[in-house]
């Protein structure tokens, strides 16, 4: 499902631009998150100061990550939970399968977890005879469509209401085929009833974690639907999937982060359900899982420490960057070919799957800087995108034409005298050719002129004219 197609970004993007239904879906969605974040930030005078606080907490934690991991594990174990480390996705999948088998699981319910998508868990469980049911409505919709998420907060943002109607008719065959699905509330109720049954019969519930609190050994999920809570409360085993950078030191520290998370993501003050889970049910608890397991996945995160990409580990997965990105808003999330799209995806994906498999991602940016402007933990995303471009340049991963074009340009740019001489000639030539003031077509500039006219130079260059005027 999420076997990366990042290397086909250009083709993916082209298909996305031509997909009218997709363009309608993301066009409708685009402005909403932006406006709501702005309103939420406007209502809280301390918002920017809280971003600074959140950044500082994450920076401190990353600098001491090994020690916080140890402290966290100690607290989880002391309260009856189990921590399992996994170096990579393959190990993590094996651990989850093993746990599910021990629990005798035939079916598993899942809260929305991008890490589980990164691990490609569902397909693996299915191959091993265990049905994995997504319970977040957006994840459920894409599961029945056999698609990957296109947004980390709103996984089905690329799907129109009409498409959901069609999918529900196709899949929910136990219901009358001619039933009225015009109202979204009807479809919600339909999904709610079907999934309620799954919640109650699942043997294992798997969730992600927005944060892991070292002080108390708690995992935190932040949701609006309540599916994550039903996933983790009803079955006899709760498995938490988290990557190692989700650590936060104390409850007070996590409160700072919670104050900027929902506001940045959806413009809510708080999500409806923010739940801290710590270990299995206690003696006397009337409900709750008998077993609680945390799978701590590395999958490339530790390699980012001490590198120019360390700051990316501050990410709290709010999605604000992609909501504000002109490129994401033009092509949607699937174009990026991996679980994490938009600006944060363009920095993180090469770190997970290798830059050679994601060459386009750091390049498909105008560096407009809006992502960094809205990031709640102030990650310098454009700088890190540029750092990936530097790595690509050093490793000769850019196409030969681009490299030689750049080399030619560099030759002249480093020699101002030659540069001004050559550009003056070129300018006058093009000016003479472009009598109508612009080019509708120009060889070597087809990328530009395919969609736009190209203004012609006015005549001699400024420097040439200035020199001429300055002559006594």
């Amino acid at each position: 499902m999420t076997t990366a197609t990042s290397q086909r970004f250009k083709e993916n993007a082209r298909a996305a631009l031509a997909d009218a239904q997709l363009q309608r879906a993301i066009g409708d969605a685009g402005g909403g998150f932006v406006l709501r974040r702005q309103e939420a930030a406007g209502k809280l005078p301390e918002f920017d100061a809280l971003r600074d606080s959140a950044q500082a907490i994450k920076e401190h934690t990353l600098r001491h990550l090994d020690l916080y991991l140890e402290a966290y594990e100690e607290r989880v174990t002391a309260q009856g939970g189990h921590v399992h480390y996994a170096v990579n996705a393959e190990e993590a999948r094996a651990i989850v399968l093993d746990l599910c088998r021990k629990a005798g699981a035939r079916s598993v319910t899942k809260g929305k977890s991008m890490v589980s998508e990164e691990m490609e868990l569902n397909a693996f469980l299915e191959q091993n005879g265990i049905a994995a049911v997504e319970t977040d409505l957006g994840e459920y919709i894409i599961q029945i469509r056999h698609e990957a998420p296109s947004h980390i907060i709103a996984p089905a943002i690329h799907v129109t209401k009409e498409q959901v109607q069609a999918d529900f008719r196709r899949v929910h065959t136990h219901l009358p085929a001619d039933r009225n699905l015009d109202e979204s509330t009807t479809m919600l109720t339909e999904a709610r009833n079907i999934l309620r049954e799954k919640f109650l019969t699942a043997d294992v519930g798997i969730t992600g974690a927005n944060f892991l609190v070292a002080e108390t050994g708690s995992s935190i999920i932040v949701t609006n639907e309540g599916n994550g809570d039903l996933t983790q409360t009803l079955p006899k085993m709760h498995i938490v999937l988290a990557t190692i950078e989700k650590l936060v030191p104390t409850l007070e520290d996590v409160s700072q982060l919670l104050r900027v998370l929902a506001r940045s993501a959806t413009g809510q003050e708080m999500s409806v359900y923010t739940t801290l889970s710590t270990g299995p049910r206690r003696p006397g608890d009337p409900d709750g899982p008998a077993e609680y397991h945390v799978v701590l996945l590395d999958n490339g995160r530790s390699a980012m420490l001490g590198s120019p990409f360390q700051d990316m580990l501050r990410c709290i997965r709010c999605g604000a960057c992609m909501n504000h990105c002109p490129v994401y808003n033009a092509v949607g999330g699937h174009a990026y070919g991996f679980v994490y799209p938009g600006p944060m995806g363009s920095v993180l994906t090469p770190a997970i799957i290798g830059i050679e498999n994601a060459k386009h991602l750091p390049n498909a940016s105008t560096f407009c800087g809006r992502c960094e402007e809205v990031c709640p933990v102030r990650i310098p995303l454009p700088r890190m995108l540029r750092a990936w471009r530097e790595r690509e340049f050093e490793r000769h991963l850019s196409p030969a034409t681009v490299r030689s074009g750049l080399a030619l340009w560099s030759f002249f740019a480093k020699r101002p005298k030659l540069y001004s001489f050559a550009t003056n000639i070129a300018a006058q030539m093009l000016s003479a050719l472009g009598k109508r003031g612009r080019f509708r077509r120009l060889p070597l500039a087809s990328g530009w002129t395919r969609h736009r006219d190209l203004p012609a130079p006015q005549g001699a260059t400024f420097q040439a004219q200035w020199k001429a005027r300055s002559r006594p």
Partner: protein
Amino acid sequence: MAEPGKRVGLFVTCLVDLIRPSVGFAAVKLLQDAGCTVEVPLQSCCGQPAFNSGDRRTTRAIAEQVIAAFEPYDYVVAPSGSCAGMLKTHYPELFEGDAAWSERVDGFCGKTFELVSFLTDVLRVTRVGARFDGTVTYHDSCSGLRELGIRAQPRRLLAGVDGLELKEMTDADVCCGFGGTFCVKYPDISNAIVAKKTECIAASGADTLLAGDLGCLMNMAGKLQREGRSIKARHVAEVLAGMTDVPAIGEPQR
């Protein structure tokens, strides 16, 4: 605070140099009217194409030349938020940890400014004596806005231009899709972005588009023309300097 009579080294920018020198002459006029002497040392580029392509070595070599070439001047002024942003905020990254250059780089960056904000923030110009009959809308170029904080300054000066009416467009601060090499590397995506931008420009009801960056302007003007719209595009310096007898961007020379 600048005293009149200070020496300004004009950083022309390669697009102005090559495509539209009238912007450079407008910049010169604005600076001279505000009491500066303007000189134009031999120059090529700020190095941004190499920088954004990941070629740090070339960028550094160019930066050293630029810093040296502009050393004699009290100020370095560029009619572009993108180039000024490169010079002022990114040059230090190229010299990080290099003690031999740190003082020179700090000195250079400290005296480098984008044109319009230089007029308002450093020279304290409150009004230019210009006239422009028409309605304009203003696009906030990304680097100027987010790297240099330029938003209020051009609007302040435009407000004092006789006959000019400013009509804001929605999403004035959203990227136009130029992004330097981006628009030729990913032309279809760039086109989708600029198409949204031209919708906003047209919806504003203005007959002229202004901005402080020629790259953005060429991109938007080129799309407006391809769409057959009649909206003209100029650099804000040209309007502020009262030098609008020159054909607009992409229009034929008479």
